[in-house]
């Protein structure tokens, strides 16, 4: 269940968008006890200037990304724009049954996109 990008394409600045991962949709609901799903989110948007510089409070821009965006502004098509990718992620915990009938609680890093950046 994903938030559509503005204008149906890559419109708008690079930022995190809502994406809910449902374990029922994935087919894992028979063994995952909790949660039923989680807000994984995803990154989408343009990394042209000034978005590539990142706003206040956002992740620090990589010099390489800024220069690449500058280069693209001066000469579109040369190498393209920087990529809009996860810059800060957070973990989730999952409670599930394994194949030995154990109830398992596992902690997984890097499962939720909190912040995106141009890289």
């Amino acid at each position, binding site marked *: 269940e994903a938030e559509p990008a503005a204008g149906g394409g890559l419109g708008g600045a690079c930022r*995190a968008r*809502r994406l809910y991962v449902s374990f029922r949709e994935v087919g*894992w609901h*028979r*063994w995952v*006890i*909790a*949660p039923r799903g*989680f*807000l994984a*989110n995803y990154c989408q948007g343009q990394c042209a200037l000034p978005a590539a510089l990142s706003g206040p409070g956002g992740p620090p821009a990589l010099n390489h990304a800024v220069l690449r965006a500058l280069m693209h502004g001066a000469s579109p098509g040369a190498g393209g724009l920087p990529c809009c990718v996860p810059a800060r992620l*957070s*973990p*989730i*915990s999952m*409670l*599930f*049954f*394994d*194949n*030995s*009938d*154990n*109830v*398992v*609680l*596992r*902690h*997984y*890093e*890097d499962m*939720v996109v*909190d912040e995106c950046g141009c890289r």
Partner: protein
Amino acid sequence: ARAPVPPGPAAALLRALGLRDAPQGAPTLRSVPPVMWRLFRRRDPQETRSGLRRTPPGTTLRPCHVEELGVAGNIVRHIPDRGAAARPPEPASAAGQCPAWTVVFDLSAVDPAERPSRARLELRFAAAAAPASGWELSVAQAGEAAGPGPGAVLLRQAVPALESPVRAELLGAAWARNASVPRSLRLALALRPRGPAACARLAEASLLLVTLDPRLCHPLARPRR
């Protein structure tokens, strides 16, 4: 020779999550123990988060640490006793020589790379009456035979009452702290009254195992010293 069939994306994803195969589903007659629900609710960061809002400062938990149990770890397993079905029925309230019970825990799901940090034996007993001076629990290694013949005693501990679950830490007693988790664990248990009283009955046994898989513990997430 035929090349092995490459695993599909689902299998690769499961392996990345530390699972060998996709679990088959919820077993029948197996409920989720309250301790596991408690640990999950405490650990789940999305319990305190909604939408894209950041987790408020001060609410983040130490990564790779199980706060409620006070140990390092990122995997907690509640492992049921496999020996219950093979145990002969006990006399209702035999006095004198109390029976010993063999409990068996299948630990084959634990990866050799995981480092154990807690192995808590949890026992529930039923007794008609409690002796004034309480009970004594002894845990010994059990042989491969089905009989309850005990081997070397691993630990003994006083049990004042049986109303709440009896807990015993096995790490460092059943196997060395710095050793890998064994593939299975067979223990001989005995609960003896410290005074004249009828024997208790073992109602339920389980193992709460906490391990740390360093591959799932992001190095950047660890607090800097």
